[in-house]
């Protein structure tokens, strides 16, 4: 047994930590691609939102300075990556429920690899969704005025924002009694953040009591920044605001999630 090619724990523990994160992330992505239905359902909801707002409500929504489809698609993309990061809560709650996290605890792996691996695999899943919804957007007439580079910048911004948020959802997933409850617990957070926002309509016509929140809340800032970058129009300090919100979120939420992981696992 002493002939096993096993590493000693003090040698390059950082390298093994990275290896553990990749092993977990790879496993999550394998599972994702093994259940194609899951991917279909992941993109079916944003597609329905695209159809609903592009063709049902779009005719009566007037946005100064934008064709509505050019206003809508960046918003839908932001909404979709945020919904995507909810998957972090569901995935961790499932692993916990099935006893997998407990099993991982008896292995000589880096403890935080479970959390880091999960958020990273959900980040990659969001990249896939962004690509697909971009394609859907172009099919329904989305023609952003910005450059390719600024489009990519916009995608990186919202993916980073969603990644930081997913640490909060990691906390919820670890605090919830099961995956169904985890999903339900995210709803009261997600709903006001995505609908009382600049995702679907400009905040200008909202009543004043709502407008203050809707203008400054992080999702609106991100939507404004993404839209401005994609369309090549001025968007004030919203990019910086979005980055600041994201950085602030991860600084607060990651320790919360880590602490909760220590508690439950």
């Amino acid at each position, binding site marked *: 047994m002493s002939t096993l*090619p096993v590493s000693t724990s003090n040698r390059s523990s950082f390298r093994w930590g990275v290896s553990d994160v990749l092993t977990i992330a790879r496993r999550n992505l394998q599972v994702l691609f093994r259940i194609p239905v899951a991917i279909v359902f992941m993109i079916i909801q944003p597609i329905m939102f695209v159809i609903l707002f592009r063709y049902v409500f779009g005719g009566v929504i007037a946005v100064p300075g934008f064709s509505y489809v050019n206003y809508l698609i960046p918003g839908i993309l932001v909404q979709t990556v945020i919904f995507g990061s909810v998957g972090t809560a569901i995935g961790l709650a499932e692993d916990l429920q099935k006893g997998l996290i407990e099993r991982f605890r008896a292995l000589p792996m880096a403890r935080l690899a479970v959390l880091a691996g999960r958020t990273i695999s959900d980040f990659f899943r969001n990249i896939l969704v962004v690509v697909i919804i971009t394609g859907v957007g172009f099919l329904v007439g989305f023609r952003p005025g910005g450059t390719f580079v600024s489009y990519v910048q916009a995608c990186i911004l919202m993916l980073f924002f969603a990644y930081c948020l997913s640490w909060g959802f990691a906390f919820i997933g670890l605090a919830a009694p099961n995956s169904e409850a985890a999903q339900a617990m995210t709803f009261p957070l997600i709903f006001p953040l995505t609908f009382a926002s600049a995702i679907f309509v400009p905040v200008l016509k909202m009543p004043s009591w709502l407008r203050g929140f809707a203008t400054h809340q992080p999702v609106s800032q991100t939507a404004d920044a993404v839209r401005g970058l994609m369309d090549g129009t001025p968007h004030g300090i919203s990019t910086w605001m979005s980055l600041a919100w994201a950085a602030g979120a991860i600084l607060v939420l990651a320790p919360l999630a880590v602490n909760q992981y220590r508690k439950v696992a």
Partner: protein
Amino acid sequence: MPEYAVEAFNIVRTFAAGDVRALDDVTLHVPTGQVFGLLGPNGSGKTTMVRILSTILSPTSGRAIVAGFDVVKQPNQVRHHIGLAGQNATVDENLTGFENIRMVGLLNHLNKPYVVAKARQLLEDFGLANAGNRIVKTYSGGMRRRLDLAAALVAAPPILFLDEPTTGLDPQSRQDLWGIIERLVEGGTTVLLTTQYLEEADRLAKQLVVLDHGKIIAEGTSSELKAQMGTTVVSLNFASIDDALRAQPLVADLTNTPANLDGSILEITVNNGPAVTADALRRIDGAGITLSGLALREPSLDDVFLNLTGHKAEDDPTETPEVSGRKRKARA
């Protein structure tokens, strides 16, 4: 090799802010290279003990040494020397059998070519070679347990914790797993086995500890445990429960341990089987009660357990079900 692979000293573990004592002053010495049985009904603290020894849970007080390392102070070194498998068969349902073993191998920081070769070999050894590339969702209960055990063995741990490895399995799968466990021990592995099946403990374990409500209530070899209470069980079968009830006081003074009435069957455990049987028959006949059947047998661990705890090993205890660290799972 050290004499003991696992040692636990005065382990106490409380849950629910001290209201529930899942383990109450448990001390164990598990000799290297044997199967050590931790026997007890649901809620007796077996799983809590395994979780503590496998570094998943920390003890409220007490100390445990596994493979020479302290489970609280040196958990990572402990994890390099243990494998854990059991009733929960925590394999990833959405991965294939091969991928499950590979994942555990990589998380044990073994190098990739070794893990791949070892995974193939384990699948072969455990009769899963043809199922290795199938998703675990399609596996039967017995296949999952074998895979769970295979994954626990990928790093060839010298110490293996098996938490109720055969609970809920059909007899054939149980026999298969017993065979695997016996071969592992022949190869030098130390196994700490928890079970509520006395037959399993009897067959596999050299040394036994019986837990009830978090306390050790008996320990020794299975024959020592049996010898504590008599050498023969006299089983008297009556035509009706009434007859059995009438016979019970007649034979009560023939034995030190209380007679066990189960329906119309009355059992007494004695040291001098034939003589006591003759005496019992005379008394029953004298009272005009007809016996419909009679058997003499060696006491099983079931009898030991009943005798020690007043309830059967597979019964749920009537109170204080074990509280797990989390509310999401009911564990035994």
